[in-house]
């Protein structure tokens, strides 16, 4: 962290607050006020008439922003590594708890010079195999058996890829399919987060968006000719309806928060249950496919599905959908960073009072950002129906909750959401491979998800780790270390 980082942390308090954003916002407001047009909308981005000191401050803040982005990345990476470490312990413990014929993994020590074997313990699950399946299995086994980064130096083959490996394999399709939905739900959570709203209701918004998409496409299909034109019309209609339904459902907790001061964490959780119940009621009573045992609608016609590109139709994945996700990642990033609406959203998220004094209509911003968040979730639901399922079925997977994980791991940055979504897409796709190959329950991924969030929430832990001092170190040693590392850690940062 740079010198300014310490100050920012002091002033901003918690890690959620991006010090750059606060300072950036308030300085913009000051310049706007000084130039004599307080009634005007916010002026985002570099303003030409800013005084030279402002420029210098801005440059310093830019540096800080990139520093905090690096730190953010390191934090996410460290959280992932630590989660895998804890997951390994969990897999070993589970391996002790089950019974098997032969141990898949034996923990022991080397016995050089004929030393006796003092310690040996067998486990039913091999953690290396589990994580190998989890990550490489999800990509369709790209590497040759036994290939490692050092193989070429030991006379091994230079080309790491296994013979006959195709990048566009079915398991890769599963990974990318999960990634696509998670991009949408992750973006949805991230937008709300940036506005200072904790939207746990993405799941419900996604479910109702999916339902709206399924029903509207089923309703419109008879009026639309089959073929390419029909595909364009129906997919566009489905996406629009999904976005509108999700957006309206997201606006409810937004309005409740803005005008009735109801805590959005509680209302969105409750609305998730309501959405699931309503969807079940509607499908079970009015739109049920009579030929099916499951509570689901009749399938939409084939030409209403998002057309697969490069992949087979049975792989249920389309690069068009992923491309839409990528476009939205860039679009949301632009919206948040470069437009006046995005500026309002960010300032309300960081400093609600300052935003209000600066002329931001706080209530409207809350409702709009929740509607946008819900719309993104609704599009995720639409893609789920039109790309993966081809119908609406009750019991939608927990994409909304995974979206929270994706967003938190990405530091609520839209660009980071893409990477985080791919990571979790891999984990979700890999969990089925793991279960098939090793009998380890797929719920392992659920535990990893929780652990990653837990570790991302505690950057202080990793800072302490990086300083090489445990939390219980005596104050004198810590003071020395703090002095040694410059002005970064003032006395206020250490505890007790």
């Amino acid at each position, binding site marked *: 962290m740079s010198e300014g980082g310490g100050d920012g942390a002091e002033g901003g*308090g*918690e*890690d*959620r607050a991006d010090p750059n954003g606060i300072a950036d916002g308030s300085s913009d407001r000051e310049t706007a006020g000084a130039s004599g047009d307080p009634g005007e909308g916010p002026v985002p981005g570099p303003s030409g008439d800013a005084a030279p000191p402002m420029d210098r401050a801005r440059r310093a803040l830019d540096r800080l922003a990139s520093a905090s982005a690096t730190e953010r990345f390191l934090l996410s990476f460290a959280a992932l590594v630590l989660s895998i470490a804890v997951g390994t312990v*969990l897999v070993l413990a*589970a391996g002790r*708890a*089950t019974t098997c014929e032969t141990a898949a993994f034996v923990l022991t020590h080397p016995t050089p010079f004929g030393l006796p074997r003092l310690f040996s313990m067998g486990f039913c699950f091999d953690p290396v195999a589990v994580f190998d399946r989890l990550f490489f299995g999800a990509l369709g086994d790209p590497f040759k058996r036994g290939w490692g980064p050092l193989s070429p130096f030991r006379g091994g083959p230079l080309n790491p890829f296994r013979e006959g490996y195709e990048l566009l394999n079915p398991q890769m399709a599963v990974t990318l399919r999960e990634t696509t939905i998670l991009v949408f739900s992750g973006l949805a959570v991230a937008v709300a987060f940036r506005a200072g709203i*904790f939207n*746990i209701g993405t799941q419900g918004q996604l479910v109702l968006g999916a339902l709206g998409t399924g029903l509207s496409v089923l309703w419109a299909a008879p009026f639309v000719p089959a073929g390419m034109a029909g595909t364009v019309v129906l997919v566009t209609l489905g996406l629009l309806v999904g976005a509108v339904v999700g957006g309206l459902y997201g606006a409810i907790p937004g309005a*409740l928060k803005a005008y*009735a*001061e*109801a*805590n959005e*964490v*509680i*209302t969105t*959780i*409750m*609305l998730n*249950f*309501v959405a699931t*119940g*309503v969807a*079940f*009621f509607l499908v*079970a*009573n009015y739109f049920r496919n009579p030929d099916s045992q499951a509570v689901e609608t009749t399938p939409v016609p084939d030409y209403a599905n998002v057309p697969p590109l490069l992949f087979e139709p049975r792989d249920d994945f389309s690069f068009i959908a992923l491309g839409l996700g990528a476009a939205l990642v860039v679009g949301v990033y632009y919206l948040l960073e470069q437009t006046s609406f995005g500026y309002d959203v960010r300032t309300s998220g960081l400093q609600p009072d300052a935003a209000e004094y600066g002329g931001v209509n706080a209530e409207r911003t809350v409702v709009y950002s929740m509607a946008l968040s819900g719309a993104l979730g609704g599009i995720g639901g639409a893609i789920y129906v039109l790309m993966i399922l081809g119908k609406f079925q009750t*019991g939608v997977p927990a994409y909304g*909750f995974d979206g*929270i*994980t994706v967003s*938190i791991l990405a530091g609520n940055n839209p660009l980071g959401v893409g990477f985080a979504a791919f990571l979790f897409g891999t984990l979700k796709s890999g969990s089925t491979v793991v279960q098939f190959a090793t009998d380890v*329950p797929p*719920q*392992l*991924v*659920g*535990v*990893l*998800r*929780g*652990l990653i*969030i*837990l570790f*991302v*929430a*505690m950057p*202080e*832990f990793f800072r*302490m780790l990086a300083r090489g001092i445990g*939390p219980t170190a005596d*104050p004198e040693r810590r*003071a020395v270390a703090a002095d040694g590392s410059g002005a970064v850690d003032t*006395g*206020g940062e*250490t*505890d*007790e």
Partner: protein
Amino acid sequence: MSESTRSALDRARDGLIERLDGLSGRQTAGLAAGAVVLVAFVAAGLARPASLAGELLDIATSESAFGAALRLSVPIALAALGGIFAEKSGVINIGLEGLLIIAAFGAVWGTDITGSILLGFALGVIASTLLAGLFAVVCIEFRADQIIAGLAVWLIALGLAPFASQVVYGGPNTDSVGTVPTLPEVLWFLPTAEQIPTSFGVPVVGGLVGFVLDVLLEASLSVYLMLLMVVASWYLLNRTAFGRWVRASGENPSALDTAGVNVSRVRYAAVLLSGVFAGMGGAALSLGLGQFTGNGPTMVNGKGFIAIVAYLFGNYNPVGAFLSTFLFAGLDALQLTLQTRGTGIPDSLVRIVPFVTVIVVLALVGRTRIPEAAGEHYESGEE
């Protein structure tokens, strides 16, 4: 009427007037609307017993619905008590749901391996307390964002309990074990509900006594534990030094620090206590059925989040939290009875009534005054 009784009544009336003055216009309107709806409903039910309102009234006043409401209250009320201590001390514990889940599994597993319901119950409480301890360390020692850390606690438990169940029992649902007994099952000299007369030959009052006795004799020991804990935690929070520290730690931690009390230690104790209470709730939930079911949102199914609403609605008062819990649980009991009776109302819709109620209540009550320093990390100035 003696002098002291009179003055006590005066105080009570003054307190009530003060309470009513403190309500905002929206809250008053909400309360009035609620009262009008309730009165209209009861009147309609009494006037036309054959109508839907009459049937609902009949169900709502039945022994089985009342007993079910008490039974369903147990996990929510106990988790809410835990939430009160944590939040009063300044740590918002949104992970109550996770604590319930882990305790529910731990209790069934413990009962299965030890063969004793009491030991299993204890194991559930221990599991929940350990997880709460992890949450406390993360929030207090490592200054994590309390909301995100609480969410992580929920997600970890949501993954861990079905994972463990899959490893031990080969599926997300565990085997069946024994359930928490009722009072007559433990104390052989007590009569069962069938053995006592329904009205003791006295009209109205006798019927009421019979009703209460029937409900109490058929209730499991968990219900008694819950009622005991409501009273105990009220006493602990309002009448002891520890309770004072907890409240000060949430309202004005630096004052507590100045007074020479370690704020971190108070918060640790409060969060661990929330783990103990939620643990009792989770253990009572799964041992009430004798099984842990871990599909989807597991058998806990949002009870931890309803507990948060219950204590917010009860304004951090253990008794108030219990009463609002009883309201939500009563709605749940109503829908369970409706399902079995088959009144033509689709149960998938009735099932969401408690959740909608929570939203409406929150919208009407609006912002409850949370403790001043809740959600914030406290940094002692001393080095």
